[in-house]
């Protein structure tokens, strides 16, 4: 039905992919550094390579990675690869491909980031709505506002503090790792709970750090909606505050928030990159971090691209789902 829209959105997606990949392609090439060389120089640190050989090896690998071809051809190959979901080969973890590496670490990040995004969406919007709702008691509004303060705390910092207080001092939750050392991953409930326990602190750090954003925007939205005539009319109808809150106020205020979901996810991914590290969770973030630190450029660009495409795709999906939630848009 919406063929035009669909094709337009797909075009948008392609444009995003194109822009992101172009940026990731050209930035390192504008810079005077040679990623392959840098990587091998780094490797030489652990011993063995001689300088004479280094250049030979670099040349050899440059060929493997196609870096000896003319720039435009490289660019073309790169683009063509991306369209086939081929993000190239890791420099550091050769012979693994970037896609393989992403698949290995993705589950952890998806688990963490998706759950925290949803949680912070629910919590933040709930608090924001309550903060704007004139009937809610002052203490509740103050709590909601104090969450805004938390928004000012970078999740890593929260993570550090949480580890210190809850992990070190109170010994309530594990200090790190994705699951208890030595357990063998399986499908059991026990394992699932173990994973959950380990995700709790990083999850809290991410949720606390991102709730405030939702509180702010939801509060703004909420005050706007509350001034709408249909809310007033609902009161005139004699509806109880609960029903009004739920069906008239929350529902309407929430809708525009949903469009922000995909972008919020993007922000959380950023936070997760740093947070995963301090909790020793082997997700995309940790992968990216180690890539950054080991000059594994192809992995860095691969992950950046992957995340970007993920976010853009989610944005498009949200856009397509949105009409299902908002009848006004459906109509157009």
């Amino acid at each position, binding site marked *: 039905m919406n063929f035009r829209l669909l094709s337009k959105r797909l075009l948008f997606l392609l444009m995003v992919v194109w822009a*992101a990949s172009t940026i990731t392609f050209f*930035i390192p090439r504008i810079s005077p550094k040679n990623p392959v060389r840098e990587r091998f120089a780094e490797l030489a640190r652990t011993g063995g390579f001689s300088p004479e050989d280094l250049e030979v090896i670099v040349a050899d690998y440059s060929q493997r990675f196609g870096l000896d071809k003319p720039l435009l051809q490289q660019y073309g190959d790169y683009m063509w690869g991306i369209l086939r979901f081929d993000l190239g080969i890791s420099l550091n973890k050769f012979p693994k491909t970037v896609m393989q590496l992403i698949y290995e670490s993705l589950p952890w990040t998806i688990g963490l980031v998706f759950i925290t995004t949803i949680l912070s969406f629910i919590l933040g919007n709930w608090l924001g709505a309550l903060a704007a709702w004139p009937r809610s008691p002052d203490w509740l509004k103050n709590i909601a506002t104090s969450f805004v303060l938390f928004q*000012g705390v970078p999740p890593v910092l929260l993570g550090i503090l949480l580890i210190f207080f809850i992990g*070190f001092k109170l010994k309530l939750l594990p200090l790190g790792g994705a699951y208890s050392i030595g357990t063998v991953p399986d499908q059991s409930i026990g394992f699932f709970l173990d994973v959950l326990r380990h995700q709790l602190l990083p999850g809290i750090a991410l949720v606390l750090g991102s709730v405030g954003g939702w509180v702010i925007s939801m509060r703004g939205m909420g005050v706007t909606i509350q001034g709408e005539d249909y809310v007033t009319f609902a009161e005139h109808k004699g509806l109880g505050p609960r029903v009004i809150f739920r069906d008239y106020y929350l529902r309407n205020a929430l809708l525009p928030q949903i469009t922000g979901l995909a972008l919020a996810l*993007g922000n959380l*991914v*950023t936070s997760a990159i740093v947070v995963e590290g301090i909790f020793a969770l082997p997700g995309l973030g940790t992968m990216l971090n180690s890539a*950054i630190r080991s000059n594994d450029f192809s992995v860095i660009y691969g992950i950046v691209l992957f*995340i*970007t495409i993920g976010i853009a795709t989610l944005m498009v999906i949200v856009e397509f789902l949105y009409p299902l939630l908002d009848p006004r848009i459906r109509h157009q």
Partner: protein
Amino acid sequence: MSSVTLSNTAIRQPNKVTLFFRYLRRNPSLTFGLLIMLFLVIFTVHGLLTINTKDAYPLAVRPKMPPSFQYPLGTDFFGRDLYAAMVIGMWQTAVIGVFAGALGTIIGTIFGFISAYFGGFIDAAITSICQILIPIPAFLIQVIIAGSIDKRSVTILTMAWVVLLLAWMGPTLVIRAQVLSMKERQFVSVAKLSGMTSLGIIFKEILPNLLPFIAAAFIAQVFQAVFASFYLAIVGLGPVREPLLGNTIWSAQTQGAFFNGWWWWPIGPAVAMILILGSLALINMGMDEMANPRIRRSE
């Protein structure tokens, strides 16, 4: 027609200052945010006037001293006076934040105006560029860029530039949306009828009304900039020697400060970071209220 004296000439609106304070009372988040900010500014300015800059760098004082009268925030493993380090760190954070924030906002405002006011192809181009760039996580690109520049030339200002690079799309879209709605307002039509030129209308009619939005965008930008600089510091891409708050927190971490019982080392800058970002978030929320008249509490 007879003109009877208006009885409401007699009504005196309370003066602006009173009104401002009353407004602050109604907008606690703004008030709270401004108060914290004011405190931080006083702290920094007072600090800058009293400290010895050298004390903010290693080997200046006796290391690993807990807070005392002489060193109100203690000293760290490297022998920095943490009070001096905090003052300098706040100052540098402010420089990055304000620089990136201001430029981002200015660029955003200019693009937003151009886009909305001239419409057509330019608008389509600017908005699509923004929309295409927005899903790209800025931080990741910043990492790539920061990783690609020659580290010897990384200073506080380069850091601000890196932060700025992907920071202008947000304001652009916000300002564009506002100008678009503003543009449809009748006073713009009237200004045209009064012989005003496009530029005149932009600067004299529309811009002043967007000040709250621009201010809100600015605050949001500063927030983003401070945040980004913190993250870049953590992944080791900042000017490491400088006592930027992020650097101090991170170096405390890498020296195991908590574990070794030197809690005062990371706590100070962490609290400062929380206060800076928290007050910005609160001000942002308060500004939101000003920018959105529906939310504005009735007067």
